[in-house]
């Protein structure tokens, strides 16, 4: 990879902003992550905002739910773009890991995010 990956976090309400802010507080850096809310957007407007946020470089789009308007906008964009991968079910653990592993291809980074994020979800018993 000659260009580091960018991450775009797309969510309902202010979840994306909160996740990116949490990454910033924990790591001191979150510039490679761009938060986007679906507030006030139909599918077309959200897709346009997503396209603007991604720009021309390689990117991973993290969406909150494995269905719904955020995922739909991401997949619609992915069909017209090269070098864009989509991960549904974003969590803080995968974003923290992503920040430090942006030298991968989008597909590799997406696979890594699914593994890292999945490992972070567990039932904790005393």
């Amino acid at each position: 990879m000659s260009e580091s990956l960018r991450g775009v976090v797309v969510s309902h309400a202010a979840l994306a902003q909160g996740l990116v802010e949490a990454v910033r507080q924990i790591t001191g850096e979150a510039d490679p992550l761009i938060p986007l809310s679906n507030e006030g957007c139909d599918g077309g407007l959200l897709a346009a905002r997503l396209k603007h946020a991604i720009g021309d470089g390689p990117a991973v789009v993290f969406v909150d739910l494995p269905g719904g308007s955020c995922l739909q906008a991401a997949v619609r964009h992915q069909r017209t773009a090269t070098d864009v991968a989509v991960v549904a079910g974003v969590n803080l653990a995968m974003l923290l890991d992503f920040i430090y592993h942006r030298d991968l291809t989008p597909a590799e980074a997406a696979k890594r995010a699914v593994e890292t994020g999945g490992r972070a979800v567990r039932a904790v018993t005393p």
Partner: protein
Amino acid sequence: MTLDLVRLDDRLVHGQVVVGWGQALAASLVIVMDDRVRQSEWEQELYRMGMPPHMSLEFASVEEAVAAVPRWLCSSQKTLLLTGDVDSLVRLVEGAPAIRRVNVGGLHQQPDRRQRLRYLYLSETEAEQLRRLAERGVEVSVQDVPTARPIPFREIP
């Protein structure tokens, strides 16, 4: 009547509908009525990704929906019908006058639309179309989620 909700919502299948309305009405079938999506297999697959396992999703053109309304009304399956544009909604109600109540959910920003509520933008043409439906005796109410107060369309600025 088991066509429990006929809803105008430009996001079609999304959380507010599947989780919010689906849970509140205990719906087990969602119908997306959209002429374009009816012809697009990849878009149908995209909408299927958002469905919980206990709910089914079907797609219909407006013409197919008009023909199927009598069957849906007699079905024991609790059903939500979604459409994303005012024209399709009007065509449905004109073709299937048994539908006496429609819900206006989210319609979002477009260049020719004016904001009426936080989640509702309508052009003057769209507002007039909905007004005419209401004048013909169809109950047109605006309500984004089940816990919100349904607002009669005549109260919309």
